[in-house]
């Protein structure tokens, strides 16, 4: 167990490309921290630098207060679970899990005891004498976890450990990874590109983009108080809706109509020295079918009318999609998010508003619907810098 500190850690490749720039993260002892971001954001590079599989070009990595930049992986006492599991195919499950202990020259009795113990935790007892080739994906994944936990390392590093599993198994394994981490209370750094895993697993989440840390915080905090457009768009599913707007005297003009800002929002924007042109963001669940909102709230909120493009009924809730005339342009961050989600290639999807409505809503495809939303929930962003003007952290 250990705390891990990344102090201005930088990775520069010989060709000049900078994969990670001055990353500062302090990971407390026993903490479960998630590095999340779209592909190419530097999260795996950061993990490999902590592991010692890649050299650190600048800054300092401290494990337990000691500089670890030059230490080889074996001297760092850190275990890693790979995306591909990387099980040794010529060894049985038992030997795979015993391998780190054998290298550490632990005596046979202890090795057996520890392997049995780990197998017990991961429910692998019946499979100990099988070869990895004969195991299912989920079992292989557990063997990889077992190999990491047998030697009680200072920290676990996990590189997208669940991304090769099918959706159902991924859900189950997500819960068991979380339970296991709490049970063992070992510092864990977990890399993923899946924002659901990031939201559900970690004590804290680090959002990365292009090698830069965008924001660090608890999942709930990132959700409620995203520091910028990128975090706002990345965290949450379905993601936040963005519309361009003009701000004048505390009134927002956009395709959602003319909205009077609430005092709190207005104060924050003024304090941030907000420009006239902004991007307004609002999450799907902050919309509601106007007929289902009681009179009192309706007064306080704002509404807009539009034709329902597509309606998805999930049983417990309904997702209504609206097309807007106005295109959102000029934000590099949104373009990257769209590219990552793959929606950049889908024609016309850039200007869709997604709303989550109560299942009781009478919304129907092709019919007009009046939708209510709470201006208190609006987040306003600077289109140039992407900064959240309503950030209250």
């Amino acid at each position, binding site marked *: 167990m250990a705390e891990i500190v990344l102090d201005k850690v930088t990775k520069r490749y010989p060709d000049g490309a900078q994969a990670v720039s001055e990353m500062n993260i302090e990971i407390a002892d026993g903490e479960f921290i998630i590095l999340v971001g779209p592909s190419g954001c530097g999260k795996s590079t950061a993990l490999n630098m902590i*592991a*010692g*599989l890649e050299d650190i070009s600048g800054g300092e990595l401290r494990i337990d207060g000691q500089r670890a930049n030059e230490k*080889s*992986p*074996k001297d760092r006492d*850190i*275990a*890693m679970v*790979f995306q*591909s*599991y*990387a*099980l*040794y*195919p*010529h060894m049985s499950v038992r030997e795979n899990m015993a*391998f*780190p202990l054998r*290298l*550490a020259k632990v005596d046979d009795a202890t090795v057996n005891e520890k392997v049995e113990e780990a197998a017990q935790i991961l429910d692998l007892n019946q499979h100990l004498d099988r*070869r*990895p*080739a*004969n*195991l299912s*994906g989920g079992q*292989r994944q557990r063997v990889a976890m077992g*190999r990491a936990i047998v*030697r009680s390392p200072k920290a676990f590093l996990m590189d997208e450990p669940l991304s*090769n599993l099918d959706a159902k198994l991924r859900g189950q394994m997500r819960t068991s990874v979380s339970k296991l981490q709490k049970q063992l209370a070992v510092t864990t750094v977990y890399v993923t590109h899946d924002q659901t895993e990031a939201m559900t697993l970690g004590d804290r989440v680090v959002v990365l983009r292009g090698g830069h840390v965008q924001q660090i915080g608890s999942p709930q905090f990132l959700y409620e108080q995203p520091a910028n457009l990128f975090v706002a768009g990345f965290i949450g599913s379905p993601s936040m809706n963005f519309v361009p707007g003009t701000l004048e005297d505390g009134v927002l003009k956009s395709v959602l109509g003319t909205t009077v800002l609430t005092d709190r929002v207005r104060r924050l924007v003024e304090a941030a020295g907000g420009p006239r042109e902004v991007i307004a963001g609002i999450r799907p669940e902050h919309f509601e079918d106007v007929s289902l909102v009681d009179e009192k709230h309706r007064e306080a909120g704002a509404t807009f009318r539009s034709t329902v493009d597509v309606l998805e009924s999930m049983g417990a809730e309904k997702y209504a999609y609206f097309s807007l005339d106005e295109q959102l342009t000029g934000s590099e961050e949104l373009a990257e998010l769209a590219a990552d989600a793959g929606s950049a290639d889908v024609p016309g999807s850039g200007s869709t508003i997604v709303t989550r409505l109560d299942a009781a809503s009478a919304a129907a495809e092709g019919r007009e619907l009046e939708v209510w939303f709470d201006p208190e929930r609006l987040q306003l962003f600077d289109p140039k810098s992407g900064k959240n003007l309503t950030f209250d952290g």
Partner: protein
Amino acid sequence: MAMQTATAGRKARWALLDIIVVVYALVPVLWIASLSLKSKDTIADGNFIPREWTLQNYKDIFATTEFIRPLFNSIGIALIATFVAVILGMMAAYAVARLEFPGKKLLVGVSLLIAMFPQISLVTPLFNIERELGLFDTWPGLILPYITFALPLAIYTLSSFFREIPWELEKAAKMDGATPAQAFRKVIAPLAAPGVFTTAILVFILCWNDFLFAISLTSTEASRTVPAALSFFTGASQFEDPTGTISAAAVVITIPIILFVLFFQRRIVAGLTSGAVKG
């Protein structure tokens, strides 16, 4: 029904093709074997199956040092050359497959160049060099050129095997606390074993079959290998045709190769690395 006859027709065509290939490849071998079992009087009768069976030819070749000594040379030289070439080839191939270093393309290019170099053009210089150095007609005098020409083959074959071993296994071994040497010995080498054996067979055959260097760089039985020695075979008198004994010797020197392949074939298990990583 039509489908079935179609597949039956296909099967028949393939079977016919296979038979032609097998016959084409095996008839000369069997012919040699048949010659070696014929007695001196019937050797030129043109029969495929000998009318008079005899093992006299085999007795004759093993009765003289003219064959036994070269056989010993052949085995020794080919084994040593194979061993050295495979060890060096493993190191080079590992570097080629895994590391980025300046001059890597050059190294691969040069080894390809060596493999394609016409050996005959090297015979005269090698002859002179070896005579000056005192390597002429010695075991090292043959082992060295064999290693040189076997290395490109070894590097090419081995590096393609190394490339198939998932890179992450080595990272995993490092994370599990292995030194680079331990990672290589305990994880990479066992997985590369099929490739190593395949390469060993190919290199061994290359050395075993060589005639050009064997005839040019040797002069006595001290280092003459079997392919060269065969050409020096004579009959009991100079008027006698040594066809029978040459055939017998040819059959005998084929046996080690067959044994070698059969022995290592068990080790060449396809798909040994399956289950290591997903996919």
